[in-house]
């Protein structure tokens, strides 16, 4: 049965059903997130169609190496998140904590690398107002970065609770739902990277 202090405890619901609903709620939220970024993708394609040369010039200012590195960093982070859920499902307390910590570690790596991209650009006077490509660039990566920060605070909370011994094979909904959000952040970057850096 559910532990005191979990979301499930508030409801007089069957824990399995509560778990399913908890997850479904997150999936529905993620659907709206896809549409949020989808609008920006549409803007990207419209501007790129109208001003292809500005996009080509702008894209050539981006550092593919850092972008690619960040893609890998986020994939690793996503992997350790998946492993965290797996550890929670198997009641492997120590592994859960270690994997969550690694997830956070790679997530901070992403932010630091992003800083190495943004700060020199801003110092060189490349700002969101520089041209239409950089408006799209800063808007999409900025909104994504905001998601990374929110995701990291979720994972931090999960880590704190995991250390408190909250999650085990009968109660891992929190880890799984936090994981769903984190994987979506990865999925969005998977699309942003080629669109902004490669083509």
């Amino acid at each position, binding site marked *: 049965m559910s532990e005191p202090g979990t979301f499930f405890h508030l409801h007089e619901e069957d824990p399995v059903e509560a778990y399913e609903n908890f997850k479904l709620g997150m999936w529905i939220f993620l659907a709206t997130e896809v549409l949020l970024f989808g609008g920006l993708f549409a803007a990207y394609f419209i501007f790129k169609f109208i001003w292809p040369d500005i996009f080509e010039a702008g894209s050539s200012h981006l550092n593919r190496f850092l972008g690619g590195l960040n893609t890998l960093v986020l994939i690793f982070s996503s992997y350790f998140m998946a492993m965290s859920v797996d550890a929670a499902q198997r009641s492997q307390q120590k592994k859960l904590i270690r994997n969550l910590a690694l997830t956070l570690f790679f997530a901070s790596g992403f932010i630091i690398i992003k800083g190495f991209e943004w700060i020199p650009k801003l110092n060189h006077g490349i700002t969101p107002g*520089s041209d239409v490509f950089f408006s799209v660039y800063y808007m999409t990566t900025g909104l994504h970065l905001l998601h990374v920060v929110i995701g990291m605070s979720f994972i931090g909370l999960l880590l704190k609770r995991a250390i408190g011994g909250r999650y085990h094979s009968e109660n891992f909904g929190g880890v799984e739902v936090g994981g769903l959000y984190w994987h979506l952040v990865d999925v969005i970057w998977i699309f942003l990277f080629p669109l902004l850096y490669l083509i």
Partner: protein
Amino acid sequence: MSEHKMGHIQDFSIYIKVLLALIGLTFATVLVSLVDFGIFNTLVALLVAFIKASLVVLYFMHGKYEDRVTWAFVYYPIFLLMTLIGALFLDYGFRDHTHFANIPQSYDQKHPEAAHGATTEEHGDSHEAVEVHSEETATDDGHSSSPAAAIESSDHAAPAVDEMIESHEVESQTTAIHGDIEAGRAKAKILCIACHKVDGNGNELPGAPPFAQTANDASKTPELLRNWIKNPQEVKAGSLMPNLGLSDEEVDNLIAYINTYKK
């Protein structure tokens, strides 16, 4: 629903396999982008991204074990997005863009000296960057077709002269047009295009007179236009045109640009 177990424990090795596949696909997509396949670059990049995303959804997010209701919420945003972006490709793909072609400038056009890849360098030389920047502004002004702008930029260099000239200029300030046409055009393309057509592009808000009409209306003196653009509500309370918070110099540039419509 309550009979089935909570979640689904996936075989351990799947995670590693998916991780390796994602890394491999990342390298693949970078490599493919180095070869120029024209429009296929976009398609391949999107296809690879789609495969990677599917792997994450299926195996990392355990989407594979989710029920139909959950999948409905996976498909519906994808369906909406594909419709939006598909329609957009059909629309813009077959449009004639030539009349759009020169609205905004790219960062490179605005900063011709900024070499490609400069941003990726170490930023230890921020000193240099500042110098380059001031040089650019100098040459930018040099490009301008209005001699007044050139005088202005040299005024900046010598503030004392600036003050001396200022008293002389008060008269001409209000009647003469001495802004930088190109700077004005660039501003207009950003700020005014939502309501006034700029170089034939943009919207024409009902009630907002075309620049051509204003420029050829002798009653619209530069002074009047200056006051108007600075604060429309002060000239005509309740006007629909917003106060855009522009500086004197920007207003002058805009007026110089509007004046190009004069026949």
